[in-house]
Protein backbone atom coordinates (compact mmCIF):
# COMPACT_ATOMS: atom_id res chain seq x y z
CA UNK A 1 0.00 0.00 0.00
CA UNK A 2 2.25 2.74 1.29
CA UNK A 3 2.27 5.93 -0.64
CA UNK A 4 -0.82 5.29 -2.75
CA UNK A 5 -3.01 4.60 0.26
CA UNK A 6 -1.71 7.64 2.09
CA UNK A 7 -2.12 9.91 -0.90
CA UNK A 8 -5.66 8.76 -1.36
CA UNK A 9 -6.41 9.92 2.17
CA UNK A 10 -4.51 13.17 1.90
CA UNK A 11 -6.11 14.21 -1.35
CA UNK A 12 -9.38 12.45 -2.07
CA UNK A 13 -11.16 13.50 -5.23
CA UNK A 14 -14.88 13.81 -5.00
CA UNK A 15 -17.64 13.80 -7.52
CA UNK A 16 -20.98 15.36 -6.87
CA UNK A 17 -24.09 13.80 -8.32
CA UNK A 18 -27.52 15.37 -8.10
CA UNK A 19 -30.39 12.91 -8.26
CA UNK A 20 -33.55 14.92 -8.12
CA UNK A 21 -32.82 17.08 -5.13
CA UNK A 22 -34.28 20.49 -4.48
CA UNK A 23 -30.84 22.14 -4.95
CA UNK A 24 -30.68 23.13 -1.32
CA UNK A 25 -28.01 20.57 -0.55
CA UNK A 26 -26.28 21.06 -3.88
CA UNK A 27 -25.57 24.69 -3.22
CA UNK A 28 -24.35 23.76 0.23
CA UNK A 29 -21.96 21.22 -1.27
CA UNK A 30 -20.74 23.94 -3.62
CA UNK A 31 -20.48 26.38 -0.73
CA UNK A 32 -18.06 23.97 0.90
CA UNK A 33 -15.65 24.60 -1.94
CA UNK A 34 -15.72 28.38 -1.57
CA UNK A 35 -13.54 30.56 0.65
CA UNK A 36 -15.48 30.47 3.91
CA UNK A 37 -15.52 26.68 4.28
CA UNK A 38 -12.74 25.85 1.87
CA UNK A 39 -12.82 22.08 1.79
CA UNK A 40 -9.71 22.15 -0.40
CA UNK A 41 -7.60 22.41 2.70
CA UNK A 42 -8.17 18.67 3.11
CA UNK A 43 -6.81 18.20 -0.38
CA UNK A 44 -10.30 17.59 -1.67
CA UNK A 45 -10.85 18.42 -5.32
CA UNK A 46 -14.17 18.36 -7.10
CA UNK A 47 -14.11 16.22 -10.25
CA UNK A 48 -16.54 15.67 -13.04
CA UNK A 49 -15.29 12.29 -14.10
CA UNK A 50 -16.29 9.10 -12.27
CA UNK A 51 -13.09 7.32 -13.21
CA UNK A 52 -11.04 9.92 -11.35
CA UNK A 53 -13.17 9.76 -8.27
CA UNK A 54 -12.58 8.33 -4.80
CA UNK A 55 -15.63 9.71 -3.03
CA UNK A 56 -19.08 10.02 -4.56
CA UNK A 57 -21.25 12.70 -2.98
CA UNK A 58 -24.93 12.17 -3.72
CA UNK A 59 -27.74 14.60 -3.03
CA UNK A 60 -31.44 14.15 -3.45
CA UNK A 61 -33.80 11.21 -3.54
CA UNK A 62 -33.49 8.58 -6.24
CA UNK A 63 -36.21 8.89 -8.81
CA UNK A 64 -37.21 6.52 -11.54
CA UNK A 65 -35.05 8.15 -14.15
CA UNK A 66 -31.87 8.80 -12.18
CA UNK A 67 -31.70 5.37 -10.54
CA UNK A 68 -30.08 3.88 -13.61
CA UNK A 69 -27.69 6.81 -14.08
CA UNK A 70 -26.57 6.62 -10.46
CA UNK A 71 -25.93 2.88 -10.59
CA UNK A 72 -23.99 3.39 -13.78
CA UNK A 73 -21.79 6.10 -12.28
CA UNK A 74 -21.15 4.03 -9.18
CA UNK A 75 -20.02 1.06 -11.23
CA UNK A 76 -17.55 3.22 -13.12
CA UNK A 77 -15.73 4.40 -10.00
CA UNK A 78 -12.61 2.43 -9.20
CA UNK A 79 -12.22 0.63 -5.86
CA UNK A 80 -11.81 1.56 -3.05
CA UNK A 81 -14.69 4.00 -3.15
CA UNK A 82 -16.82 5.82 -0.63
CA UNK A 83 -20.38 7.05 -1.04
CA UNK A 84 -21.74 9.95 0.99
CA UNK A 85 -25.45 10.69 1.00
CA UNK A 86 -26.04 14.38 1.75
CA UNK A 87 -29.37 15.55 3.08
CA UNK A 88 -32.43 13.97 4.57
CA UNK A 89 -34.05 13.29 1.24
CA UNK A 90 -31.09 11.28 0.02
CA UNK A 91 -31.24 9.19 3.18
CA UNK A 92 -34.89 8.24 3.13
CA UNK A 93 -36.75 10.31 0.59
CA UNK A 94 -37.47 12.94 3.24
CA UNK A 95 -40.17 15.43 2.29
CA UNK A 96 -40.56 13.71 -1.04
CA UNK A 97 -41.49 10.35 0.49
CA UNK A 98 -44.99 10.35 -0.99
CA UNK A 99 -44.15 11.68 -4.44
CA UNK A 100 -45.02 9.16 -7.11
CA UNK A 101 -41.80 9.37 -9.09
CA UNK A 102 -39.49 8.99 -6.09
CA UNK A 103 -38.08 5.60 -5.14
CA UNK A 104 -36.57 6.66 -1.82
CA UNK A 105 -33.09 7.06 -0.42
CA UNK A 106 -29.82 6.54 -2.25
CA UNK A 107 -29.23 3.24 -0.47
CA UNK A 108 -32.10 1.73 -2.44
CA UNK A 109 -29.71 1.67 -5.40
CA UNK A 110 -26.10 1.72 -4.20
CA UNK A 111 -24.41 1.07 -0.85
CA UNK A 112 -23.85 4.20 1.24
CA UNK A 113 -20.97 4.68 3.69
CA UNK A 114 -21.79 7.97 5.37
CA UNK A 115 -25.16 9.60 5.88
CA UNK A 116 -25.30 13.34 6.49
CA UNK A 117 -28.68 14.44 7.82
CA UNK A 118 -30.12 17.92 7.57
CA UNK A 119 -32.49 19.61 5.23
CA UNK A 120 -30.46 21.29 3.92
CA UNK A 121 -27.33 19.76 5.45
CA UNK A 122 -25.01 22.46 6.75
CA UNK A 123 -21.56 22.88 5.20
CA UNK A 124 -19.99 22.10 8.57
CA UNK A 125 -21.88 18.82 8.65
CA UNK A 126 -20.83 18.01 5.11
CA UNK A 127 -17.16 18.58 5.92
CA UNK A 128 -17.55 16.44 8.99
CA UNK A 129 -19.10 13.71 6.89
CA UNK A 130 -16.29 13.77 4.38
CA UNK A 131 -13.74 13.44 7.15
CA UNK A 132 -15.70 10.52 8.57
CA UNK A 133 -15.60 8.84 5.17
CA UNK A 134 -11.85 9.33 5.11
CA UNK A 135 -11.51 7.70 8.51
CA UNK A 136 -13.47 4.75 7.25
CA UNK A 137 -11.28 4.57 4.18
CA UNK A 138 -8.15 4.68 6.35
CA UNK A 139 -9.40 1.76 8.43
CA UNK A 140 -10.26 -0.16 5.30
CA UNK A 141 -6.77 0.27 3.96
CA UNK A 142 -5.14 -0.32 7.31
CA UNK A 143 -3.24 2.97 7.43
CA UNK A 144 -3.35 5.89 9.84
CA UNK A 145 -5.18 9.06 8.79
Amino acid at each position, binding site marked *: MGIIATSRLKSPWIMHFDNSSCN*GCDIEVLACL*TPLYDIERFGIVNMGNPKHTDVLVVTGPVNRRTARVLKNLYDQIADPKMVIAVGTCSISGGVFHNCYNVLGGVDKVIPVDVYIPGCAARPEAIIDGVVMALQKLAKLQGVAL
Partner: protein
Amino acid sequence: MAPRTITPFGPQHPVLPEPIQLKLTLEDEKVVDVMPAIGYGHRGIEKACELNEYPKNIYLCERICGICSCIHGITYCEVVESLWPMDIPPRAKYLRTIFSEMSRTHSHLLWLGLLADAFGFESMFMQYWRIREKVLDLLELTAGHRVTQSVSIIGGVRRDIDADMKKHCIEVLKDVRKEVEALSNVLVNDYTVKARTIGKGVLSYDQAIALGCCGPHLRASGVKEDCRMQGYLAYGDLSFEPVVASGGDSYSRAAVRIGETIQAIDLQLEALGKMPEGEIAAKVKGNPPANEATMRVEQPRGEVFYYAKGNGTRNLERLRVRTPTYANIPSLLVMLPGCEMADVPIIVLSIDPCISCTER
Protein backbone atom coordinates in the same frame (compact mmCIF):
# COMPACT_ATOMS: atom_id res chain seq x y z
CA MET B 1 -22.76 21.60 -46.36
CA ALA B 2 -20.62 20.32 -43.56
CA PRO B 3 -21.65 16.99 -42.08
CA ARG B 4 -23.95 17.20 -39.12
CA THR B 5 -23.34 15.59 -35.78
CA ILE B 6 -25.58 15.36 -32.79
CA THR B 7 -23.85 16.04 -29.49
CA PRO B 8 -25.51 15.64 -26.12
CA PHE B 9 -24.83 18.46 -23.66
CA GLY B 10 -25.44 17.12 -20.14
CA PRO B 11 -27.11 15.66 -18.15
CA GLN B 12 -23.89 15.88 -16.16
CA HIS B 13 -22.08 19.06 -17.10
CA PRO B 14 -19.71 21.13 -15.00
CA VAL B 15 -21.52 24.47 -15.52
CA LEU B 16 -24.83 22.97 -14.59
CA PRO B 17 -25.13 21.83 -11.03
CA GLU B 18 -28.30 20.10 -12.11
CA PRO B 19 -29.24 17.48 -14.65
CA ILE B 20 -30.67 18.68 -17.94
CA GLN B 21 -29.82 17.42 -21.37
CA LEU B 22 -29.66 19.40 -24.59
CA LYS B 23 -29.28 17.51 -27.81
CA LEU B 24 -27.30 19.83 -30.05
CA THR B 25 -27.07 19.32 -33.77
CA LEU B 26 -23.73 20.69 -34.92
CA GLU B 27 -22.32 21.63 -38.26
CA ASP B 28 -18.61 21.70 -37.47
CA GLU B 29 -18.58 24.03 -34.48
CA LYS B 30 -21.86 25.77 -35.22
CA VAL B 31 -25.08 24.80 -33.50
CA VAL B 32 -27.90 24.44 -35.99
CA ASP B 33 -30.59 22.80 -33.93
CA VAL B 34 -31.33 22.09 -30.31
CA MET B 35 -33.69 19.83 -28.47
CA PRO B 36 -34.03 19.91 -24.71
CA ALA B 37 -34.66 16.68 -22.86
CA ILE B 38 -35.83 17.21 -19.31
CA GLY B 39 -37.31 14.96 -16.68
CA TYR B 40 -34.27 13.98 -14.64
CA GLY B 41 -35.59 15.81 -11.64
CA HIS B 42 -39.25 14.95 -11.81
CA ARG B 43 -40.58 13.91 -8.44
CA GLY B 44 -44.32 14.56 -8.55
CA ILE B 45 -44.66 17.38 -6.04
CA GLU B 46 -47.97 18.67 -7.42
CA LYS B 47 -49.58 15.34 -6.68
CA ALA B 48 -48.02 15.05 -3.25
CA CYS B 49 -49.43 18.51 -2.47
CA GLU B 50 -52.92 17.09 -2.99
CA LEU B 51 -52.19 14.30 -0.52
CA ASN B 52 -50.69 16.40 2.28
CA GLU B 53 -52.56 18.74 4.57
CA TYR B 54 -52.32 22.49 4.05
CA PRO B 55 -49.57 23.38 6.55
CA LYS B 56 -47.34 20.49 5.47
CA ASN B 57 -47.32 21.71 1.91
CA ILE B 58 -45.29 24.75 2.91
CA TYR B 59 -42.29 22.51 3.45
CA LEU B 60 -42.87 20.61 0.26
CA CYS B 61 -43.33 23.75 -1.83
CA GLU B 62 -40.16 25.23 -0.39
CA ARG B 63 -38.33 22.22 -1.67
CA ILE B 64 -39.52 22.64 -5.22
CA CYS B 65 -36.33 24.64 -5.44
CA GLY B 66 -33.74 25.10 -2.76
CA ILE B 67 -32.36 28.33 -4.15
CA CYS B 68 -35.59 30.34 -4.23
CA SER B 69 -37.11 28.22 -1.49
CA CYS B 70 -38.12 31.09 0.75
CA ILE B 71 -40.20 32.72 -1.98
CA HIS B 72 -41.86 29.44 -2.91
CA GLY B 73 -43.01 29.08 0.66
CA ILE B 74 -44.26 32.65 0.76
CA THR B 75 -46.14 32.26 -2.52
CA TYR B 76 -47.80 29.09 -1.37
CA CYS B 77 -48.97 30.81 1.81
CA GLU B 78 -50.21 33.80 -0.17
CA VAL B 79 -52.22 31.68 -2.55
CA VAL B 80 -53.79 29.67 0.24
CA GLU B 81 -54.60 32.87 2.12
CA SER B 82 -56.37 34.23 -0.92
CA LEU B 83 -58.60 31.16 -1.03
CA TRP B 84 -60.51 32.54 1.99
CA PRO B 85 -59.47 35.44 1.32
CA MET B 86 -57.84 36.54 4.56
CA ASP B 87 -55.61 39.44 5.57
CA ILE B 88 -52.26 39.12 7.23
CA PRO B 89 -50.80 41.69 9.65
CA PRO B 90 -48.80 44.52 8.01
CA ARG B 91 -45.64 43.61 9.88
CA ALA B 92 -45.82 40.09 8.46
CA LYS B 93 -46.06 41.57 4.99
CA TYR B 94 -42.92 43.59 5.56
CA LEU B 95 -41.09 40.63 7.01
CA ARG B 96 -42.02 38.48 4.02
CA THR B 97 -40.78 41.25 1.75
CA ILE B 98 -37.46 41.43 3.56
CA PHE B 99 -36.97 37.67 3.48
CA SER B 100 -37.85 37.61 -0.22
CA GLU B 101 -35.35 40.29 -1.07
CA MET B 102 -32.68 38.63 1.02
CA SER B 103 -33.09 35.41 -0.88
CA ARG B 104 -33.05 37.35 -4.14
CA THR B 105 -29.73 38.86 -3.15
CA HIS B 106 -28.20 35.50 -2.36
CA SER B 107 -29.59 33.89 -5.50
CA HIS B 108 -28.28 36.62 -7.80
CA LEU B 109 -24.87 36.52 -6.16
CA LEU B 110 -24.84 32.78 -6.68
CA TRP B 111 -25.65 33.24 -10.34
CA LEU B 112 -23.03 35.94 -10.85
CA GLY B 113 -20.48 33.59 -9.37
CA LEU B 114 -21.52 30.76 -11.66
CA LEU B 115 -21.35 33.10 -14.65
CA ALA B 116 -17.80 34.10 -13.75
CA ASP B 117 -16.95 30.43 -13.40
CA ALA B 118 -18.49 29.63 -16.79
CA PHE B 119 -15.91 31.74 -18.58
CA GLY B 120 -13.09 30.63 -16.38
CA PHE B 121 -12.87 33.62 -14.04
CA GLU B 122 -12.49 31.50 -10.97
CA SER B 123 -11.29 34.09 -8.51
CA MET B 124 -14.35 36.19 -9.20
CA PHE B 125 -16.54 33.14 -8.63
CA MET B 126 -14.94 32.75 -5.21
CA GLN B 127 -15.35 36.43 -4.44
CA TYR B 128 -19.07 36.46 -5.22
CA TRP B 129 -19.62 33.37 -3.13
CA ARG B 130 -17.66 34.89 -0.28
CA ILE B 131 -19.98 37.89 -0.28
CA ARG B 132 -22.96 35.61 -0.55
CA GLU B 133 -22.02 33.92 2.71
CA LYS B 134 -22.66 37.19 4.52
CA VAL B 135 -26.20 37.28 3.19
CA LEU B 136 -26.69 33.65 4.16
CA ASP B 137 -25.56 34.51 7.68
CA LEU B 138 -28.20 37.21 7.80
CA LEU B 139 -30.83 34.75 6.62
CA GLU B 140 -29.75 32.31 9.29
CA LEU B 141 -29.92 35.01 11.93
CA THR B 142 -33.33 36.34 10.97
CA ALA B 143 -35.17 33.51 9.24
CA GLY B 144 -33.51 30.61 11.00
CA HIS B 145 -31.71 28.71 8.26
CA ARG B 146 -29.24 29.27 5.48
CA VAL B 147 -31.14 27.88 2.54
CA THR B 148 -34.50 26.35 3.37
CA GLN B 149 -35.96 28.75 5.88
CA SER B 150 -39.61 27.64 6.20
CA VAL B 151 -40.19 31.03 7.75
CA SER B 152 -43.60 31.68 6.27
CA ILE B 153 -46.72 30.06 7.70
CA ILE B 154 -50.32 30.39 6.64
CA GLY B 155 -51.43 33.67 8.17
CA GLY B 156 -48.04 35.29 8.63
CA VAL B 157 -44.47 34.49 9.49
CA ARG B 158 -42.80 32.42 12.18
CA ARG B 159 -39.97 34.71 13.24
CA ASP B 160 -39.63 38.38 13.95
CA ILE B 161 -36.70 40.72 13.43
CA ASP B 162 -35.98 42.54 16.69
CA ALA B 163 -34.13 45.83 17.15
CA ASP B 164 -30.68 44.26 17.57
CA MET B 165 -31.04 42.10 14.52
CA LYS B 166 -32.28 45.06 12.55
CA LYS B 167 -29.24 47.12 13.45
CA HIS B 168 -26.93 44.26 12.55
CA CYS B 169 -28.74 43.63 9.25
CA ILE B 170 -28.46 47.25 8.20
CA GLU B 171 -24.73 47.30 8.92
CA VAL B 172 -24.03 44.11 7.02
CA LEU B 173 -26.24 45.02 4.09
CA LYS B 174 -24.50 48.36 3.61
CA ASP B 175 -21.21 46.55 3.64
CA VAL B 176 -22.41 43.94 1.14
CA ARG B 177 -23.72 46.66 -1.14
CA LYS B 178 -20.31 48.30 -1.31
CA GLU B 179 -18.57 45.03 -2.06
CA VAL B 180 -21.05 44.01 -4.74
CA GLU B 181 -20.67 47.37 -6.44
CA ALA B 182 -16.91 47.16 -6.46
CA LEU B 183 -16.83 43.62 -7.76
CA SER B 184 -19.53 44.16 -10.36
CA ASN B 185 -17.64 47.12 -11.73
CA VAL B 186 -14.96 44.68 -12.73
CA LEU B 187 -17.47 42.31 -14.25
CA VAL B 188 -19.24 44.85 -16.46
CA ASN B 189 -16.12 46.68 -17.60
CA ASP B 190 -13.76 43.81 -18.17
CA TYR B 191 -12.66 43.35 -21.77
CA THR B 192 -12.77 39.54 -21.69
CA VAL B 193 -16.17 39.46 -20.07
CA LYS B 194 -17.54 41.76 -22.73
CA ALA B 195 -16.01 39.71 -25.49
CA ARG B 196 -17.57 36.54 -24.13
CA THR B 197 -21.06 37.89 -23.47
CA ILE B 198 -21.97 40.81 -25.75
CA GLY B 199 -24.09 39.65 -28.66
CA LYS B 200 -24.27 36.09 -27.34
CA GLY B 201 -27.72 34.54 -27.18
CA VAL B 202 -29.68 37.52 -28.46
CA LEU B 203 -33.42 37.62 -27.90
CA SER B 204 -35.42 40.55 -29.25
CA TYR B 205 -38.30 42.33 -27.52
CA ASP B 206 -40.97 40.65 -29.63
CA GLN B 207 -39.39 37.22 -29.42
CA ALA B 208 -39.16 37.46 -25.66
CA ILE B 209 -42.88 38.12 -25.39
CA ALA B 210 -43.88 35.57 -28.01
CA LEU B 211 -41.89 32.91 -26.20
CA GLY B 212 -43.42 33.86 -22.87
CA CYS B 213 -40.14 34.55 -21.09
CA CYS B 214 -40.10 36.07 -17.66
CA GLY B 215 -37.90 37.65 -15.04
CA PRO B 216 -34.47 39.17 -15.63
CA HIS B 217 -34.34 37.27 -18.90
CA LEU B 218 -37.38 39.16 -20.20
CA ARG B 219 -36.30 42.50 -18.77
CA ALA B 220 -32.91 42.22 -20.44
CA SER B 221 -34.80 42.33 -23.73
CA GLY B 222 -36.31 45.66 -22.80
CA VAL B 223 -39.72 44.52 -21.56
CA LYS B 224 -40.69 46.40 -18.43
CA GLU B 225 -42.50 43.65 -16.63
CA ASP B 226 -41.98 42.58 -13.07
CA CYS B 227 -44.49 40.95 -10.78
CA ARG B 228 -43.49 43.30 -8.00
CA MET B 229 -45.21 46.04 -10.00
CA GLN B 230 -48.50 44.53 -8.78
CA GLY B 231 -47.62 45.80 -5.33
CA TYR B 232 -48.22 42.55 -3.46
CA LEU B 233 -46.78 42.22 0.08
CA ALA B 234 -45.16 45.55 0.95
CA TYR B 235 -43.88 46.39 -2.52
CA GLY B 236 -46.69 48.91 -3.02
CA ASP B 237 -45.24 51.07 -0.21
CA LEU B 238 -41.64 50.81 -1.30
CA SER B 239 -39.96 52.74 -4.06
CA PHE B 240 -39.73 49.98 -6.59
CA GLU B 241 -38.94 50.36 -10.29
CA PRO B 242 -38.13 47.38 -12.52
CA VAL B 243 -34.53 47.16 -13.73
CA VAL B 244 -34.51 47.00 -17.52
CA ALA B 245 -31.77 46.68 -20.14
CA SER B 246 -32.13 46.75 -23.88
CA GLY B 247 -29.39 44.57 -25.37
CA GLY B 248 -31.22 41.26 -25.11
CA ASP B 249 -27.91 39.38 -24.89
CA SER B 250 -26.05 37.60 -22.13
CA TYR B 251 -24.29 40.80 -21.14
CA SER B 252 -27.60 42.61 -20.59
CA ARG B 253 -28.85 39.72 -18.52
CA ALA B 254 -25.83 40.00 -16.27
CA ALA B 255 -26.32 43.77 -16.07
CA VAL B 256 -29.99 43.37 -15.06
CA ARG B 257 -29.07 40.90 -12.35
CA ILE B 258 -26.36 43.16 -10.99
CA GLY B 259 -28.83 46.04 -10.92
CA GLU B 260 -31.36 43.89 -9.15
CA THR B 261 -28.89 42.74 -6.53
CA ILE B 262 -28.16 46.33 -5.58
CA GLN B 263 -31.84 47.18 -5.76
CA ALA B 264 -32.76 44.22 -3.55
CA ILE B 265 -30.35 45.48 -0.91
CA ASP B 266 -31.87 48.96 -1.13
CA LEU B 267 -35.37 47.52 -0.83
CA GLN B 268 -34.35 45.59 2.28
CA LEU B 269 -32.88 48.70 3.84
CA GLU B 270 -36.00 50.67 3.04
CA ALA B 271 -38.34 47.96 4.29
CA LEU B 272 -36.33 47.56 7.51
CA GLY B 273 -36.71 51.27 8.10
CA LYS B 274 -40.42 51.45 7.36
CA MET B 275 -41.51 48.25 9.06
CA PRO B 276 -44.56 48.88 11.30
CA GLU B 277 -44.86 47.39 14.78
CA GLY B 278 -47.42 44.73 15.58
CA GLU B 279 -48.39 41.10 15.29
CA ILE B 280 -46.48 38.81 12.96
CA ALA B 281 -49.16 36.21 12.31
CA ALA B 282 -52.92 36.09 12.14
CA LYS B 283 -54.96 33.28 13.70
CA VAL B 284 -56.17 30.74 11.17
CA LYS B 285 -59.26 28.65 11.82
CA GLY B 286 -60.46 25.68 9.83
CA ASN B 287 -59.84 24.79 6.23
CA PRO B 288 -60.06 27.14 3.28
CA PRO B 289 -63.44 27.07 1.50
CA ALA B 290 -64.01 25.60 -1.95
CA ASN B 291 -62.51 28.29 -4.12
CA GLU B 292 -59.82 28.95 -6.68
CA ALA B 293 -57.01 31.46 -6.56
CA THR B 294 -53.92 32.43 -8.49
CA MET B 295 -50.83 34.22 -7.31
CA ARG B 296 -47.92 35.65 -9.26
CA VAL B 297 -44.74 36.48 -7.45
CA GLU B 298 -41.37 37.62 -8.71
CA GLN B 299 -38.63 35.17 -7.89
CA PRO B 300 -34.95 35.70 -8.55
CA ARG B 301 -35.36 33.78 -11.81
CA GLY B 302 -38.61 35.35 -12.85
CA GLU B 303 -42.29 35.03 -12.32
CA VAL B 304 -43.63 32.08 -10.39
CA PHE B 305 -47.27 31.31 -10.90
CA TYR B 306 -49.35 29.38 -8.40
CA TYR B 307 -52.87 28.18 -9.05
CA ALA B 308 -54.67 26.59 -6.14
CA LYS B 309 -58.08 25.03 -5.88
CA GLY B 310 -59.52 24.11 -2.52
CA ASN B 311 -62.58 21.97 -1.89
CA GLY B 312 -63.32 22.69 1.75
CA THR B 313 -61.48 19.63 3.04
CA ARG B 314 -58.07 19.52 4.65
CA ASN B 315 -56.43 18.75 1.31
CA LEU B 316 -56.03 20.83 -1.78
CA GLU B 317 -57.97 19.74 -4.81
CA ARG B 318 -55.27 20.94 -7.18
CA LEU B 319 -52.07 22.93 -7.02
CA ARG B 320 -50.32 24.01 -10.16
CA VAL B 321 -46.90 25.64 -10.02
CA ARG B 322 -45.39 27.25 -13.09
CA THR B 323 -41.82 28.12 -12.29
CA PRO B 324 -39.70 30.70 -14.12
CA THR B 325 -37.37 28.28 -15.86
CA TYR B 326 -40.35 26.43 -17.27
CA ALA B 327 -41.18 29.61 -19.15
CA ASN B 328 -37.61 30.39 -20.11
CA ILE B 329 -36.49 27.04 -21.53
CA PRO B 330 -38.31 27.46 -24.88
CA SER B 331 -36.23 30.57 -25.54
CA LEU B 332 -33.16 28.31 -25.81
CA LEU B 333 -34.68 26.93 -29.00
CA VAL B 334 -34.29 30.39 -30.51
CA MET B 335 -31.07 31.59 -28.86
CA LEU B 336 -28.84 28.58 -29.41
CA PRO B 337 -29.08 27.91 -33.16
CA GLY B 338 -26.36 29.91 -34.88
CA CYS B 339 -24.03 30.15 -31.93
CA GLU B 340 -20.77 28.33 -31.45
CA MET B 341 -20.42 25.22 -29.37
CA ALA B 342 -18.06 26.99 -26.96
CA ASP B 343 -20.68 29.62 -26.18
CA VAL B 344 -23.40 27.13 -25.31
CA PRO B 345 -22.58 26.96 -21.58
CA ILE B 346 -22.75 30.73 -21.16
CA ILE B 347 -26.00 31.08 -23.08
CA VAL B 348 -27.64 28.25 -21.19
CA LEU B 349 -26.46 29.74 -17.94
CA SER B 350 -27.70 33.19 -18.91
CA ILE B 351 -31.32 32.18 -18.43
CA ASP B 352 -30.38 31.08 -14.91
CA PRO B 353 -31.81 27.61 -15.32
CA CYS B 354 -33.20 25.91 -12.29
CA ILE B 355 -34.09 22.40 -13.25
CA SER B 356 -35.53 21.02 -10.08
CA CYS B 357 -38.08 23.85 -10.27
CA THR B 358 -38.98 23.05 -13.81
CA GLU B 359 -39.69 19.44 -13.24
CA ARG B 360 -41.04 19.47 -9.73
